[in-house]
């Protein structure tokens, strides 16, 4: 079943994110084949699929780290126009620094491990043009606080922190500028269950209090089910099914989704 871009009847708002027919190959390997997705403001889209299904590649495209071979990507934001894949490097960097936040599975990709945690968050604010020290410090500590990071450790470098704490610093950095879109790539993988619950709870709270639009990639169906309004199932670079989260998990239509759901403990 391919994704249908259903036109809503009751909800009149425009989708925030529209990606259409995104394809990407690495040599003979088709990492993404005609992947399309629509996300409305305040909505959380979960992407599931086995390793190599293309879900992380798609997320990297949404974060403008990858340029696909074809396809389009638009965000409905003031001053943001056209296909974002056509932007030059500088425009991409500015857009990502100011409007899109990302949390990687591997904190090394998102953080400067030997700089202070508050400095990591402040760096994001500096890129956006903030130069006043007091404002930088206040905003960084507010973001760390919202991510439930203990403020007495804000000067510690991430290298000295546990995995769960490092994820919180990444989250603080990602939300420091109130992004329009938050991308999460396996945010809880590798964390033990109690820390995983803390991170999930923080994300749920951000969702409720700030209505941040999120796209979350995980192979953990429990995480996806807890956080997502809608779910997109990927396999071998293609979307096999999308639907409301409870519908995809309770009444999966595609043979692969049925296999995936039945394999869960």
């Amino acid at each position, binding site marked *: 079943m391919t994704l249908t871009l*259903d*036109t*809503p*009847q*009751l*909800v009149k708002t425009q989708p925030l994110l529209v990606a259409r027919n995104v394809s990407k190959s690495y040599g003979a390997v088709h990492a993404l084949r005609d992947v399309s997705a629509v996300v*409305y403001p305040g*909505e959380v889209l979960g992407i599931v699929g086995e390793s190599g299904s293309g879900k992380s590649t798609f997320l990297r495209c949404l974060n403008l780290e990858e340029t696909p071979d074809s396809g389009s990507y638009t965000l409905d934001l003031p001053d943001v126009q056209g296909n974002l894949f056509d932007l030059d490097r500088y425009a991409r960097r500015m857009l990502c620094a100011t409007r899109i936040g990302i949390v990687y599975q591997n904190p090394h990709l998102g953080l400067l491990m030997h700089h202070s945690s508050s400095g990591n968050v402040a760096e994001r604010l500096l890129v956006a043009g903030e130069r006043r020290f007091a404002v930088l410090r206040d905003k960084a500590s507010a973001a760390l606080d919202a991510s439930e990071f203990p403020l007495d450790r804000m000067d510690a470098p991430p290298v000295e922190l546990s995995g769960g704490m490092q994820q919180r610093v990444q989250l603080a950095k990602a939300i420091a500028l109130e992004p329009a879109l938050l991308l999460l790539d396996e945010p809880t993988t590798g964390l033990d269950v109690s820390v995983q*619950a*803390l991170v*999930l*709870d923080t994300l*749920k709270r951000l969702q*409720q209090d700030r209505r941040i639009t999120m796209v979350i990639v995980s192979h953990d169906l429990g995480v996806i089910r*807890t956080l997502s*309004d*809608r779910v997109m199932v990927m396999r071998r670079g293609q979307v096999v099914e*999308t*639907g*409301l989260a*409870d*519908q995809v998990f*309770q*009444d999966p*239509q*595609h*043979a692969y989704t*049925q*296999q995936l759901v*039945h394999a869960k403990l």
Partner: protein
Amino acid sequence: MTMILDVRSLSKGFTMHHLSTTMAAFDDVSFSLHAGEFLLLKGRNGAGKSTLLRTLYRSYLAASGQILFHASHGVIDLARAADVDVTYLRRTEIGFVTQFLTPRPRVSAEALVAEPLRLAGIAAPDALDQARHWLNAFGVKPALWPAYPTTFSGGEQQKVNLARALILPQRLLLLDEPTASLDVSARAALIARLAELKAAGTAMIGVFHHPGDVAELIDRTLDLTPAPIQQKDRADVVV
């Protein structure tokens, strides 16, 4: 009377790819429901009562037929509506009461109950006040309000579940055996709340193990037991 739901020739089956088969759940169901009406679903185990409720809520996808929901802003076919419309309606006009609570790690009972109000845009202190009111009404002890329901008993979890599910008045309420595992006083509180919502115009469709619990609320019943196969239709009987 205001029409709320108009279900036409609705059918549902489950395709099981690993068995290469489709199992029918119910077939060609039609009914309508008005504001303030209570419809009881009847039928033996496996007749498709809970499946029908879940299909109306869109947790299950209908195989064919229409579910015309008269929302406050217009009529929409829930069998085919865009996901984002269904999410919006679930947040504002359609409620589902199950017999199980889905507690989330590290979320208190009162926060869980207040959540539907928070999502509807009500400020945190007001939402929390109302949550405490309903936890009290369903007989959850105040000491448990800030605790995590993960470790509550089945009965206590169910009270939290009901407080959460019934805190926000809805246009349509789907009830899947909500009286299971409830003690007498909680059952009385549930029936009082349902009567109050019904009087205010909420339309309800329910499945109950013991329909006697809600006898005074029932306006109509719909029997989902398939009609017995007529002799003349049976291929294995030589007439």
